[in-house]
């Protein structure tokens, strides 16, 4: 499974999402859009919106720390 999470430094829901993945022992790649403006553009393009976090699970885009949607995507 390929899990990516787009974050900024001070976004509480990003921290919650990362903790959630750690708790579930799901490996993920963090992309900090604050440090990488190009990734910010990529995130906006992929998700069609400008809020963090954006979570990508095997190509599926989930906006925000939407736990039910994340759990569903992980089960697939």
């Amino acid at each position, binding site marked *: 499974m390929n899990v990516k999470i787009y974050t*900024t*430094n001070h*976004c509480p*829901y*990003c921290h*919650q999402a990362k*903790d959630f993945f750690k708790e579930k022992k799901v490996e993920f790649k963090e992309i900090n859009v604050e440090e990488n403006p190009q990734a*910010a553009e990529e995130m906006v393009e992929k998700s069609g919106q*400008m809020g*963090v976090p954006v979570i990508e699970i095997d190509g599926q885009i989930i906006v925000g720390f939407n736990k039910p949607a994340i759990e569903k995507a992980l089960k697939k």
Partner: protein
Amino acid sequence: MYDIIIIGAGAAGLTSAIYTGRKKMKTLVVSVDIGGQTLLTEHIENYPGYTEETPGFPSGPKLMQLFDTQAKKFGAEFTSGKVNKLEKTGNGFKASLTNGETYEAKAIVLAYGKVPRSLGVPGEDKFIGRGVSTCATCDAPIFKGKTVAVIGGGNSAVEAAELLTKYATKVYLIHRRDAFRADEVTIERVKKLPNIEFVLDTVPTEIKGEKFVKGIGIENSKTKEKRELEVGGVFVEIGYVIETDFVKDLVKINEKNELIVNESGETSCPGIFAAGDLSSFPYKQTIISAGQGAMAALTAYEYVMKLEGKTGARIDWS
């Protein structure tokens, strides 16, 4: 059927859950998120016992994680969702969630806090997340190199504008009055920033764009002159409101739209208790919400014990 349903998992709700869990009450916590507004506090330095010696200090989210772990340790169940209906039933209450689920309990603790106030202008809902944001702390970095507008005149608005000047090329700070309500020191500091422009006596009328925000329509409330600013982002920082629609037929509300509670956390409806920022108690703080949460839980415990014919002896410690 639960003994108790706690609506909201901020400082108030999580503390209630610790107390009802320890009383072995069958507890369900229903909440949109875990931690509430304290998640937005980068530095919380006035919560007793949370100091340099505590791992995570001074992060608000880390403090809330400690609350959460403690509540779960004592057995509270959690479900994520938003309650939009609360009704009396023959033997208690029924809470309905926007996802269609329903849960029943003998008693209820309302601890769902406050939510950011919205502007109520055309385009706001459409562009939420597409340039309209209510969390500058979260989203500011994404607006690097753009021009943005911040709406509001209190500390949170002025501080959001200050933060945004680090990323955006230009920040308009739009306020409906002729002076800000923020602290003098903050205003003085912000005034000196080169890329900020104050737009006073002005209200937004519309947020415009295609896929993303492209501009904001504004009107000077004195001259009635209208114009449009080209911006890629609009940050709404005009305070918080308490949602009372789903409870106002059950419990009494005061003129500030707060839920009226007495000193033990009882609302006007037997069996419904309330705690935290949504209550009529003054001073909206994490420690106060936590304390009220404990109070509401203990009073609710007594109430449920009495329902079951057991003595609801008042306990001073447990």
